[in-house]
């Protein structure tokens, strides 16, 4: 059977890898390419790159800034695909079919779409038609309000009022093939995963779910794997700061009966 994946997420801001907290505080921790080589040597299951650059002018939709944001993606994929022989997922700031075409042609296996899925659902549909659903990851940032998981967009600022479960159903109909779920309130908090929401989502959808947000140590991974049928366990900060963390986590999960690679 398919193994549970353990996935480092690299948050990239203005070309640098950052540690993220609360979706708002970002500490620079390194060069994209150097860090990639480090992950490569750990033999990871998959890498997710999310560009969270948010030049204020970019939000006004100025074309010249869009180009900048994309060009960093392009350089990243060109460089890493030469040295990385694992599935690569790229997201953040993808707005047009041209962006998608370029990334896939240069070695991206999956494209992560978040805000754009709300603004132009057709981008999800067209990407799925052209490259297959397996290439389209619907990325969802959410907060739990009054016991209900609500979808937020634009780096966790805009409340869409949508229930996460409803949005996933809509995304699946558009052609998304995987869900990347990120709990805003747990970002950088090392408070453990949001087992309740993740569990509900996994039970409701047939799509593979990758969960992120809240990992403080490898026992949080174990808890998530034991309590839910999640397909992928993702984390950002912890892998960066704890030396040997990835391999240690894999070993511990295996020892405790989780089917990992």
């Amino acid at each position, binding site marked *: *059977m*398919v193994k549970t994946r353990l996935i480092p997420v690299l948050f990239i801001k203005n070309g640098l890898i950052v540690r993220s907290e609360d979706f708002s505080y970002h500490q620079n921790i390194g060069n994209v390419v150097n860090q990639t080589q480090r992950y490569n040597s750990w033999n990871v*299951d998959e890498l997710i790159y999310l560009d969270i650059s948010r030049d204020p002018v970019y939000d006004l939709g100025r074309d010249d800034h869009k180009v900048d944001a994309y060009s960093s993606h392009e350089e990243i994929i060109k460089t890493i695909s030469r040295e990385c022989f694992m599935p690569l997922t790229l997201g953040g700031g993808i707005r047009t079919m041209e962006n998608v075409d370029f990334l896939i042609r240069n*070695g991206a*296996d999956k494209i992560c779409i978040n805000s754009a899925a709300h603004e132009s659902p057709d981008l999800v549909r067209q990407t799925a038609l052209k490259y297959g*659903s397996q290439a389209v990851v619907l990325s969802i940032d959410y907060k739990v309000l009054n016991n209900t998981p609500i979808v937020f967009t634009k780096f966790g600022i805009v409340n869409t009022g949508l229930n996460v479960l409803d949005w996933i159903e809509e995304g699946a109909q558009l052609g998304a093939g*995987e869900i990347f779920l990120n709990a805003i309130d747990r970002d950088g908090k090392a408070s453990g995963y949001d087992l309740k929401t993740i569990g509900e989502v996994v039970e409701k959808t047939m799509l*593979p779910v990758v969960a992120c947000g809240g990992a403080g140590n490898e026992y949080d991974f174990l808890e998530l794997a034991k309590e839910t049928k999640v397909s992928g366990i993702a984390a950002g900060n912890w892998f960066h700061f704890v030396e040997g963390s990835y391999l240690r986590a894999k070993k511990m999960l295996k020892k405790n009966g989780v089917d990992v*690679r």
Partner: protein
Amino acid sequence: MIGIVNYRMGNLASVQHALNHLNIANTIVHVSAEIEKCDQLILPGVGAFGKAMEALQELQLIDGLSEHILHKKKPVLGLCLGMQLLFDQSEEMGDHEGLKMTKGNVRSLKNEISRLPVPHMGWNQVKESGTSALLKNIPEEERVFYFVHSFYCDASDRNVVSGTTEYGLSFDAMIENENIFGCQFHPEKSQQSGLAVLKNFAAIQ
């Protein structure tokens, strides 16, 4: 020299990067005449079966491939859709004829399994059946590869199957028949285990 067949589908770059990383001489093949200088061929592929066969026809690659693979017996390795193309036919979006280099059909996973997500995507174990040249020197616990597919190969001659994988059912993950090889998984995306498969293929005369 390994020729990577470009029929304008799939991720040629990843396969080429992997071969470059292994220092294996390679070239991209666009037209039949270019197959001449290649000792081995890789047929990559991501996408739909029918569209791929159409593209191979349009680019007039089929006769060249047949001559070098079936008559000159040059080793060929089909990857993912490339493996499926080696079979007689596929039921992906209507029935389509394949290259007919291996007897058998390509079937839909969805028709066989209902309780698991399709595509079958992720890392999964390959179990050797018989003796596989491609899995040579790869320890059993490291025979875990990256899969992404909605259709699977079902070889008529079970002797050509060199590896199987479980996903709701047991399907043919690898074939090896004289000079014809195929992997349903993506070795170019399967870390060190995948690179080892490509290295094993390059060593085949």
